[in-house]
């Protein structure tokens, strides 16, 4: 990190008076998704992002259960048990969509062909390590699904999460304490309080919502550039 980018980052704009709702955050992420890109939106909060991607942007959604060009949630008569997203929710087609089997679908992902993948997270380390599949509590039934494949599979892996856990602890951490999903894989973290770029040198604040950089530094126990 050069002094110049440090100086820039130090002035990360506070773009809102209050923390963002998850819907507002979805809109912020949608804004950053380039025209015509191929995107996988993880199960849970990230699916909201689709609502903020206008058709004319030409973003094409991948769902790892075997489809490119996935459309919105199916309503009423549109529901077809043979057409669901990765969260097993019935969805619709978009024009120009295509179907493929699971090995081809994950080859597409693992081969680095997707531009962006947005995932939820329990913890993200400032070096990009991701923990989002297991809390590590004894007795939990382990279940990973496509999380580890997604974590290493897109050119850019974004995380969408609340910055603080219910107990007030920041989920952007020096080192994950929960079992890892992937190492050094996250390039950007979108949270209700701030957006961070991650890299080998650590976390850089891009913008904040309802919190000052000073407050952020106080509550997040990692060095923030």
């Amino acid at each position, binding site marked *: 990190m050069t002094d110049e980018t440090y100086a820039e980052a130090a002035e990360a704009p506070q773009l809102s008076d209050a923390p963002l709702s998850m819907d507002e955050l979805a809109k912020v992420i949608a804004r950053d998704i380039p025209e015509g890109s191929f995107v996988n939106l993880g*199960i*849970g909060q990230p699916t909201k992002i689709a609502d903020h991607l206008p058709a004319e942007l030409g973003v094409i959604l991948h*769902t*790892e*259960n*075997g*489809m490119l060009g996935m459309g919105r949630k199916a309503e009423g008569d549109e*529901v*077809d*048990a*043979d*057409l*669901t997203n990765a*969260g*097993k*929710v*019935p969805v619709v*087609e978009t024009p120009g969509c295509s*179907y*493929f*089997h*699971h*090995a081809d*679908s*994950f*080859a597409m*992902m*693992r081969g680095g062909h997707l531009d962006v993948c947005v995932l939820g997270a329990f913890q993200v380390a400032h070096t990009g*390590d991701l923990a989002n599949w*297991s809390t590590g509590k004894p*007795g*939990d*039934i*382990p*279940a*990973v*699904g*496509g*999380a*580890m*494949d997604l974590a*290493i*599979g897109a050119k850019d892996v974004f995380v969408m999460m609340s910055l603080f856990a219910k107990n007030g602890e920041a989920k952007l951490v020096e080192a994950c304490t929960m*079992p*890892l*999903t*992937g*190492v050094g894989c996250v390039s950007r973290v979108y949270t209700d309080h701030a957006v961070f770029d991650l890299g080998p040198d650590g976390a850089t604040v891009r913008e904040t919502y309802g919190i000052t950089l000073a407050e952020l530094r106080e509550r997040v126990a990692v060095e923030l550039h």
Partner: protein
Amino acid sequence: MAKTSILETADEAVAGIEDGSTVLVGGFGLAGMPFDLIDALIRQGAKDLTIVANNAGNGEVGLAALLKAGRVRKVLCSFPRQVDSYVFDELYRAGEIELEVVPQGNLAERMRAAGAGIGAFFCPTAVGTPLVEGKEQRTIDGRDYVLEYPIKGDYALIAAHTADRLGNLVYRKTARNFGPVMATAATTTIAQVSNVVPTGELDPEAVVTPSIYVDRVVQVEARHYTVQGAR
């Protein structure tokens, strides 16, 4: 593989599955799940099975019913814990079933390797996570990989949309999922389909599973379920 048999009943289709077999079961959640074949397998009685599937059953139909019947010793899957996987959850907590969790893409690629005659492959998925403990690792061109081995089945039970009388298969939408991969990875592949059409009626450009991978076909009434409370 020899000529595909077109059978009259699901019971004939699952005949001969031995105790202790490894059975690949198609479907992602309930889409593409071969319900009739699983029901027939329950009637058939084979036990001590190892099941390879993406999930470990939903509600009490399909794979969940097989688990409930006590026929399964071990499950290899990517995502056992779901909102409606209570049958598996109880068996697992009671220590009555073994579980090997495999990342979803590795599950697919390991079966693809079995079908394609690949002995093992270096895969970047899960490097640095608890799921690769004890596995061979190697850095190739600056990237870290884990050596993954094929998953081969004695039987595959899959659901497709239409078969011709030679056994060529086409699927429908995302119900395609694991079917085409599992068909290549099993010694004996058994497909339930909604339609059987005369040979020559499927577009040769659009056949997804060529007949060489299919041993037995049975036509059944389409049954559809959706996951209750799916996220």
